[in-house]
């Protein structure tokens, strides 16, 4: 009974729904259109509840850490801030002048933006200490990078044709390399989707 519920039913669901959704693209009949519209509605409904997993995982992780005195203060801050945001959002509303929006603008945005801004320092340190021109390929990489870095500054506007040179590098050789990668990625996506539908790719059901 257990293998049926754990593996066979999910794999069967993926197979049946996957085949139907692939075939409906090619069938212009009204029934196919109805299936398409309803599946989009159901997908949005189920996807809107997927956040439950994130909440459950968050609360389990931090409530477990409350028992560890090294991490307890931090996890307490996480849980209390979660509770505060939820209560303020549901009770006070989410309009542009609400406390909810103010907490988003003045606490969440600076915290996240500053965390990612640290990357500028690490990148500068890496550029100074680790980027070494060790061969022809690295030389090509660096010369291109120098042209693009300079061309994307506003100082580059003083140099005649700089914008056009940057645009040519991005629109011709860069495009060629990225397109080659993209075609490969597209083939990979299609292959993986087919493998999931046919049940060959089973990592999501525990292998």
């Amino acid at each position: 009974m257990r293998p049926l519920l754990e593996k066979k039913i999910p794999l069967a669901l993926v197979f049946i729904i996957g085949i139907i959704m692939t075939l409906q693209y090619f069938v212009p009949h009204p029934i196919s259109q109805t299936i398409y519209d309803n599946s989009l509605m159901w997908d949005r409904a189920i996807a809107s509840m997927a956040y439950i997993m994130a909440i459950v995982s968050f609360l389990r992780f931090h409530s477990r850490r409350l028992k560890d005195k090294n991490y307890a203060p931090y996890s307490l801050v996480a849980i209390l801030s979660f509770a505060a945001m939820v209560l303020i959002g549901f009770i006070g509303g989410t309009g542009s002048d609400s406390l909810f929006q103010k907490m988003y603008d003045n606490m969440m945005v600076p915290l996240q933006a500053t965390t990612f801004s640290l990357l500028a320092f690490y990148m500068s340190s890496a550029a100074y200490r680790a980027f070494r021109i060790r061969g022809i390929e690295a030389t090509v990489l660096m010369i291109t990078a120098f042209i693009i870095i300079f061309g994307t500054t506003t100082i580059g506007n003083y140099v005649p044709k700089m914008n056009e040179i940057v645009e040519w590098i991005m629109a011709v050789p860069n495009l060629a390399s990225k397109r080659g990668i993209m075609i490969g990625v597209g083939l990979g996506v299609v292959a993986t989707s087919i493998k999931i539908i046919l049940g060959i790719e089973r990592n999501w059901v525990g292998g």
Partner: protein
Amino acid sequence: MHISTNLWIWIQALLTLAIFTFLYKDNPLFRMAEHLFVGLATGYGLVVVYKNAFYPNVWVPLFQEKQFIFIIPFVLGLLYLTSAFPKISYMIRWPMAVLLGIGSGLSIPLTIQTYIIEQSKSSILRPPYSNLISWINALILFVGVVSVLVYFYFSIPHDRPGVKQISKVGLFLLMLGFGASFGYTVMARFSLLVGRLDFLLNKWLGIRPF
């Protein structure tokens, strides 16, 4: 210099400086700020998802408009709660299977069209071109795409004559592409830091640009 007296600006500034302390070393102030962010972000997500997604897509159709067919996605969605109970947590695979099936099925024809057919069509040489530069660009594009694809084709050994030279051209173009990406990445990373510094100088300390 007119230091702000707005409480929210001060909260923003103190949280920004708390994160910046990590540049010196990991410390309790940074960790508090980090955990505060995690809690706020999770709570924010719950409120927005409930109000904008769950309530109009599930609650209203099922409980207000009495469209009882929505009981199926509602029950499937509730199965996400079983992730809290290890013995029955396998049930989250059922709603995941529905989403995977719909997503995979929809993506196959559209991905083939977008990533393979359209991109290949746009790489093919289509003479005549209006001038020499257009010819050169088209040739570089065509040769470039083919050589990059050959570089990534590992089913044949790359030391064969012909394949070796073509994949070297592909590697050269890849380095060009990565150099271009690195150049843009430098601008992107600095933008984030400049954004925060601009806030601290302009809004918090009130140092207006001269």
